[in-house]
């Protein structure tokens, strides 16, 4: 796994802290898109979308290229890795949750065994 300097990590998580920006990354994961298409997709102004794309670009998650009058956005080299990371974080949350669930259920099992013994007496 590639190690990024901490500051890069921070920029990247900052960029990912916004649901629209995460949505943009996801969208670009499927296909490249122009800023105006993204603005339309996320129902916001062109200026608003430009700002979001700017933040993503700074974090290295998105690259843009202007051809004629259209600026096309595509996923930066790190975009897909971030998606995988998001899934892994989400999975870890559930995993931690289920570890606690195991404890609760184990306790219920023990209690049931004890109660069962009591009933038999």
């Amino acid at each position, binding site marked *: 796994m590639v190690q990024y300097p901490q500051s890069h990590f921070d920029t990247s998580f900052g960029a990912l802290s916004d649901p629209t920006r995460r*949505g943009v990354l996801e969208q670009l994961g499927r296909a490249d898109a122009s800023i105006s298409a993204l603005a339309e997709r996320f129902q916001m102004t062109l200026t608003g979308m430009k700002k979001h794309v700017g933040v993503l670009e700074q974090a290295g998650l998105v690259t843009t290229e202007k051809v004629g009058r259209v600026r096309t956005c595509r996923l930066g080299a790190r975009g897909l890795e971030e998606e995988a990371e998001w899934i892994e974080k989400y999975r870890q949350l559930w995993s931690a949750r289920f570890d606690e*669930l*195991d404890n609760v*259920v*184990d306790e219920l*099992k023990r209690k049931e065994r004890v109660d069962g013994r009591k009933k038999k007496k």
Partner: protein
Amino acid sequence: MDERRKSEATPTKNRTTLERKSDREVVVTRTVNAPARLVFEAWTKAELFRRWWVPKSYGQTLLSCEMDVRVGGQYRLVFPFENSTMEFFGTYVEVTPHSRLVWTNDEGDAGKTITTVTFEEKGGKTLLVVHDVYPSAEAVDTGSTGALPEALDQLDELLASL
């Protein structure tokens, strides 16, 4: 592979899988080494549910947890958030003891998220499948069931410090 697993001593943790089924769906699975009836109990009794839903390792506690687990019944979870609180709430749509729970999550502006949990018992173990359907692709990341945003932030910090 399977045979090797059988011969292992059991008390190892089971694997949690998470899959993005589509841009609006996330599916999480895990096997619990207990009959469905006990697992279901841990999902439907507030005093049990609150003990595991927010993992201790995330350094968060629920301020309150109310669950009226019947069709049309409501739930409400309250978390401390910055200087205030954050609430998650919704309605139980389907309650089939020991096998299936469906609830909506209603606090978002962008529509309801629907969570379906199935409990499938096999050989004394229970396969849990948690299926979230979000109102939109954008809502997935901010959604209710998995993404306690503040908890994920803490995890971000943790990951960043590794």
